[in-house]
């Protein structure tokens, strides 16, 4: 559905606007398959929005090429735009004085929806995002969650094969965010391809077929959420000791001294070790526990959460992957 080939975007600096030259995207080559939810994650300024704006033909690449639904974003802009529904993160993309329905009618007409069928289509998308009862209120009276849902409704008006959602749940209350996530899964079930950007890694893990990590304009690993976590050499080893009455606080220091252990936390009888070498850590940790006179009740080793992998990859809390 989407293919990019060494996509690069460099912005010139401007002394007047106090803007320094920056390479927002660098040699990004990726493929998004039909009917999958592909999520772009990465720190602020990583290039996610730049990539989305290039795919939407709102920004020209400096070099490289991209195709959406088989059409070149540089040469076939009209066909590319007809293939995309864009739902942006901001709230300033509607006419505040018009109602939700009037906004949809306006944008639907520009999308080329015929007068005879536009009302029916508007009713369908309003129904899909649960806005039917509020459709005739002015947009300016909508809550943030309602604005995001109307934005999703607009992106679906012409039933495009590709829907791009830029941080659709940012600043949205948990109930609305949950509903927006449900819409995304419904879109996937209906055969749409979804490109999503988010900072909510739980959301990314929950929804995505594949995740791509953008960092400083470069595309890092692209994989399924499970493989993302499994590929990390880190493991969370949780050891539950049998309570001898004295607790296990004395062990924390000893376990922290094991070379492969990155961090140790203690919560009651449970010790959690983040390690880069599971086998070595287990052997050393169990030996230390037994030598201290404590008995082990249970041991589990799990891959880290997506958030922990992300932090490791982007130079966050944990030392290395």
């Amino acid at each position: 559905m989407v293919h990019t080939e060494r996509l690069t975007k460099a912005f010139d600096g401007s002394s007047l606007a106090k803007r320094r030259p920056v390479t927002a995207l660098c040699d990004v080559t990726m493929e998004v398959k039909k009917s999958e939810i592909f999520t772009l994650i990465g720190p602020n300024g990583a290039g996610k929005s730049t990539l989305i704006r290039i795919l939407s033909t709102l920004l020209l690449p400096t070099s490289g090429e991209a195709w959406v639904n088989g059409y070149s974003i540089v040469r076939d802009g009209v066909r590319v735009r007809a293939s995309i529904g864009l739902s942006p993160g901001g709230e300033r993309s509607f006419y505040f004085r018009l109602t939700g329905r009037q906004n949809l009618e306006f944008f639907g007409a520009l999308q080329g929806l015929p007068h005879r069928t536009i009302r029916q289509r508007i009713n369908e998308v309003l129904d899909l995002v649960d806005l039917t009862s509020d459709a005739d209120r002015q947009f300016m009276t909508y809550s943030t969650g309602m604005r995001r849902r109307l934005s999703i409704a607009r992106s679906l008006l012409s039933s495009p094969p590709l829907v791009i959602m830029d941080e659709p749940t940012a600043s949205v209350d948990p109930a609305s965010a949950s509903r927006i996530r449900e819409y995304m899964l419904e879109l996937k079930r209906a055969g749409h391809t979804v490109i999503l950007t988010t900072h909510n890694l739980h959301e990314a893990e929950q929804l995505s077929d594949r995740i791509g990590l953008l960092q400083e304009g470069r595309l890092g690993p692209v994989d399924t959420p499970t493989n993302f976590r499994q590929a990390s050499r880190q493991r969370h080893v949780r050891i539950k000791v049998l309570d001898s009455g004295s607790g296990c606080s004395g062990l924390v220091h000893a376990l922290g001294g094991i070379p492969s252990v990155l961090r140790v936390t203690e919560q009651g009888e449970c010790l959690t070790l983040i390690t880069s070498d599971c086998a070595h850590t287990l052997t050393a940790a169990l030996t230390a526990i037994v030598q201290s006179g404590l008995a082990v009740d249970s041991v589990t080793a799990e891959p880290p959460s997506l958030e922990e992998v992300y932090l490791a990859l982007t130079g966050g809390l944990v030392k290395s992957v």
Partner: protein
Amino acid sequence: MYKVWIFLKRRVVTFASYRMALVMSFLGVLLSSLQFYFMSRMLGDGLYIPSLSPYGGDLMSYLIIGSSFLGLVNVGLTSSSGAIRNEQLTGTLEFLLMSETPLWQILAYSAVADFLSAAVGTVVVFAAMALCIGMEVHANLVAAGVVLLLAVISMSGIGLMSAGMIMVTKQGDPVSWVFGVLSGFMSGAVFPVELLPSALRYLSRLLPSSHALSALRKAITANASLSEVSGDVASLALLALVYVPLGILALSQGFNIARSRGGLAEY
């Protein structure tokens, strides 16, 4: 037609929701009418000016048609850049550009809404003058309509150049400023072009508003037919043929520069 209707509906709904602005617009039209009314009182039964004889000679009619219709014709000049600027401020420009409707068409629909709004004001002022001061109107509506249409189209060409400039500069474009100032000064809005030095007279021929005002005066006050104003009509058509393609080219250039710089949504 549906898209034209949608733009008009957006304009009317938005405008009607700002009650104070609505009231002030009506007051503005009323005050314009009053201003002309008292000017006519000052001039008594009218003042015949020999240099205005090609346009009927009556000063009051000359001024009313000049100022009213210059505003209407200038809609073509200011509408497109104004629309771009408004959409940038509203945050909707990128979504208009994401639609299947080409940008120049979007600007044309927006201009139709602007033109109709301005036309309502002009018609009200005109009707008030005809009723209150007995301004003589012997209008050839076909000729006036054709002239007005060609004038707005050729001015829109310049307006598209201005919109292309606004895409890049965001605020303040020299194109509409220069043409706006020149139109007010040398298109015959408040004095006949014939009074200008010859060099400026030639320059004024490049302004669609010069031909438009000359032909409109003849068509509205002297019932001139289309053939009688054919010289101005031909000039307007020629200017439209030059300015509109240039405007579309400039708009396309401005759009691509903004797309390349990443400044489409900036304002």
